């Protein structure tokens, strides 16, 4: 008896969820040619997901760039090492990991929760039923624009995060006397790998897709009333974070 329950909980649940998640994505994908259904929503979602996230992403990136610079300087105080090495550590870690992961966590909270709450409310108040009843493809209308906006805007936010984060590192390093800006940049240039930003961009596409698709899934299949919406919202943020980390590891292991 017990192992039957365990089977249900551990295997059946996730398999079903994966099936429904894939169905949702296939449906969304098949609505892709129907641009007129989602055009208007796409632009408003690009603003909500992308443009409106810029301030908080920039803030978090600036701090993580600054803190990385301070910590690196602290760990590498040695008369034998050139100070430029700080730049050659801070810049790649920003481009490879920090810029995209910090942005990812912020979007998981900000965008993921919002999407799940919005779609969940629409589900429990029958607004999704109303769209369907009119003869509209609710997945094409609601989910596709959100996922597309995530895929399109996350790379933009990533670039902003890198730019602001590195600037934050340079400023703090320079004005707090850890490393002059010139040496910082020289170190960054010496160890610059052209593949690093490409890798970062690939990650940002994947993260943008992960966060928005998971949150849409959680929101779209919300059950129950206000409590269900609350659950979906929390789960959307938490699952997005977890799957970002998983994707991060997989991408690093396969592409680096």
């Amino acid at each position, binding site marked *: 008896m017990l192992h039957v329950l365990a089977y249900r909980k551990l295997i059946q649940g996730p398999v079903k969820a994966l099936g429904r998640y894939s169905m949702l994505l296939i449906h969304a994908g098949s609505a892709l040619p129907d641009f007129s259904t989602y055009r208007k929503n796409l632009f408003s979602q690009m603003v909500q997901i992308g443009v409106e996230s810029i301030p908080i992403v920039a803030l978090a990136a600036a701090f993580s760039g600054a803190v990385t610079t301070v910590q690196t300087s602290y760990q590498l105080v040695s008369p034998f090492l050139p100070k430029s090495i700080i730049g050659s550590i801070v810049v790649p870690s920003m481009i490879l990991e920090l810029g995209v992961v910090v942005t990812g966590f912020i979007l998981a909270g900000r965008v993921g929760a919002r999407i799940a709450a919005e779609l969940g409310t629409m589900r429990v108040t029958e*607004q999704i039923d109303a769209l369907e009843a009119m003869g509209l493809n609710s997945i094409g209308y609601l989910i596709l624009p959100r996922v597309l906006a995530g895929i399109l805007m996350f790379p933009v936010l990533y670039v902003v995060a890198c730019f602001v984060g590195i600037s934050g590192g340079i400023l703090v390093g320079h004005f707090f006397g850890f490393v002059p800006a010139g040496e910082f940049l020289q170190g960054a240039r010496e160890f610059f790998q052209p593949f690093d930003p490409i890798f970062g961009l690939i990650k940002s596409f994947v993260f943008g897709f992960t966060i928005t698709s998971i949150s849409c899934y959680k929101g779209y299949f919300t059950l129950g009333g206000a409590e269900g919406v609350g659950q979906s919202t929390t789960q959307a943020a938490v699952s997005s974070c977890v799957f970002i980390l998983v994707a991060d590891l997989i991408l690093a292991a396969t592409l680096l």
Partner: protein
Amino acid sequence: MITIESINKHFGDKHVLVDVSLEIFEGETLAIIGRSGSGKTVLMKHIIGLMQPESGRVTVDGTDINRISYTELRRVRRQFGVLFQGGALFDSLSAFENVAFPLRTFTSMDEREIIKEVHICLEMVDLVDVGSKMPAELSGGMKKRVALARAVALKPRYILYDEPTSGLDPETSNTIDELIKGLTDQLNVTSIVITHDMHSVLSIADRAALIYMGRMHWVGSIQELHSSDDQILNDFVKANEYQIGNPKEE
């Protein structure tokens, strides 16, 4: 014409629709009555394919709606206007935009025509002055009326009303009843009205169908309803008359 052929539906262990069959004829107004929780809304959702039966068939003009592609199903659904029990207004859009939504989505009307058409629809439900308000700013009854205006905006062939008059004062209820009657007469629409309100049933319906605990318990014309000696039907009607305080003596 819509036919429902012995459909069954469970939610978990709960058998919500048991072998339900029903025919809805062209141009008629059918009232679906029954106690709260008897399965009326679930039945309505089967008619437009928002829920699928485990067995049985639902056909609209001869097409089995559970055996066609999603694209075709959407085409079938466009012949329907649906008023959901809670209104289901889009809460990110104003009342005006809610009514305009189907027009913008499914017609090529220009802005001037849309404004005119929305105005006509809102006038019909006596709400021209609330067009700019958001759903959250409307009373329950107002929401329902805006939703009704939205449901009929495209002049559908079939209209499903899930409790159009519940939560409305008697006067507004009468207006809505008149409206439903008017639409049926003018546009020759086929209407299905889910309701608790026997007053509405008597004033608008041609036939009535009573669902009792998930089963189609009784179907017949309004005349037959008056003369029926079915115990459950009579209990339902009586309970209602007592509520309205309007005993049936003709």
